[in-house]
């Protein structure tokens, strides 16, 4: 795989750099392009669609995106199967978030808690907000008394985001009467929301 660093480059330079890398490959292969804005991601995806490459764009963090372009036989099949999801103009940007823990990542617990608080805050600042956020297992501690994210979650709720917490989990941890934001939910809803989601974001 060739990695092209197009961070800090304005359109069309990321596309030009990607094309050069693809040409240099002289055949099938994978080119990963790093860019710093979503418009560049869309322009790369647009190019991929026209050329029949498979393109997968992902946000690594704020101001850092990677677009993986797969060139060759493999890509043709995938493009045919997933034609709709590869059209940049019809991308369904909707998503839900699932939080199943009260720390983010594995490692130091204090850091993990801090990170999760930051994650929820950053989520509330996205241009496109999740349709719902589902909390289960220790995630239930985020929506109940003692959580430092209540205010951010209330903001999200005020902006139309559905906040759902697993009732069984709150029961188990003995915090059922401590719910501060959103409503209690059950496993049927938790499964249905995830089945129907276009994308699921997890901390």
């Amino acid at each position: 795989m060739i990695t092209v660093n197009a961070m800090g480059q304005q359109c069309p330079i990321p596309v030009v750099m990607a094309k050069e890398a693809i040409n240099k490959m002289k055949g099938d292969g994978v080119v990963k392009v790093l860019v710093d804005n979503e418009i560049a991601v869309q322009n790369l995806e647009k190019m991929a669609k026209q050329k029949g490459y498979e393109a997968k764009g992902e946000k690594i963090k704020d101001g850092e995106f990677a677009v993986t372009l797969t060139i060759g036989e493999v890509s043709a099949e995938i493009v045919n199967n997933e034609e709709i999801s590869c059209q940049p103009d019809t991308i369904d940007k909707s998503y839900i978030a699932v939080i199943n823990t009260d720390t983010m990542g594995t490692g130091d617990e204090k850091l993990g808690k801090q990170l999760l608080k930051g994650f929820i805050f950053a989520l509330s600042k996205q241009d496109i907000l999740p349709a719902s956020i589902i909390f289960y297992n220790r995630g239930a501690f985020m929506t109940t008394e003692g959580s430092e994210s209540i205010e951010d979650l209330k903001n999200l709720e005020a902006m139309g985001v559905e906040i759902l917490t697993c009732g069984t989990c709150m029961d188990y941890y003995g915090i059922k009467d401590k719910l501060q934001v959103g409503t209690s939910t059950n496993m049927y809803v938790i499964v249905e929301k995830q089945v129907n989601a276009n994308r699921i974001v997890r901390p």
Partner: protein
Amino acid sequence: MDKKLFCQSGGCSAKLGAGLLRHVLEKLPAFDDKNLLVGYDGSDDGAVYKLTDDIAIVQTLDFFPPMVEDPYIFGQIAAANALSDVYAMGGEVKTALNIVCFPENQDLNILGTIMQGGSDKVREAGGVLAGGHSIADKDIKYGLSVTGIIHPDKILANNTPQDGDVLVLTKPLGVGIVTTANRVKQASEEAVQKAISSMTTLNKYAMEKLKKYRIHACTDVTGFGLSGHLLEMTGDKYQAEIHASKLPVIKEAIDYADEFLTTGGGQKNRNYAGDKILFNDVPFALEEIIFDPQTSGGILAAVHHDDAEAVSREFPIIGVIRERKDSEIKIIVNR
């Protein structure tokens, strides 16, 4: 004259996205003054304020970073672009003020050459350069604040077309793509010359010709691309049907679009238009041309259909305006 400007993403492709801007502007309270005939709530090209029953002032300003390397040409383009809004409202240019951002440590002769280009265009427009303001900044930006006059009854709004109007466009599309291709050294000298000659041409001349006909709505095509300006024109009531094959286009821009030498601005325009635009079997490159941000672009006018034949002898008719019925689609582009 061999001084070169550093070009990043210049011209009108440096504009903020239309969606983004609307979001901010909607939150500001509107001013209530019966003499303000055109404010920013209609997203029109310039503001118009009535002074007497016979006279109103048209005010506009526009400035941006360089999109060409030659400072004199950049000055001309920036000025032609700023002056254009007065013409698009149907007005006559009177005075202009320079707007300058320039790095302190850079050769001031470059600035002088840019301003010479601007000054020459103001003179050509029949206006007077009356002053200006400059700021030390890390990047070069230049433009004008322009004041013109107009009869209050003869304002050409951008969003008042009528059912059956024909749409004309007075300059070729694709200058954004050509200057972008040039920035990555992939544009031919010929294509660049075509783009420059288009961008430095004052819309004064097109308006002198167009004013012979019954113009119902009029705007100049700039950063929001043909798509964005058509969306403003059609508003809530109308739909534009465009014949892609009739669009005037710098033909090299089609090749460059097929090579994906398009701007971020173009993609923003595509996102903004979203599903309000429908393409029927239109080649990819022409879609890109329709979204391409134009710098100092041509006049887009909706003209009474009885004048169609006469106006078609001077400018290409690119489509028609219809009343919109039960459809969210505001622009239909046929091959």
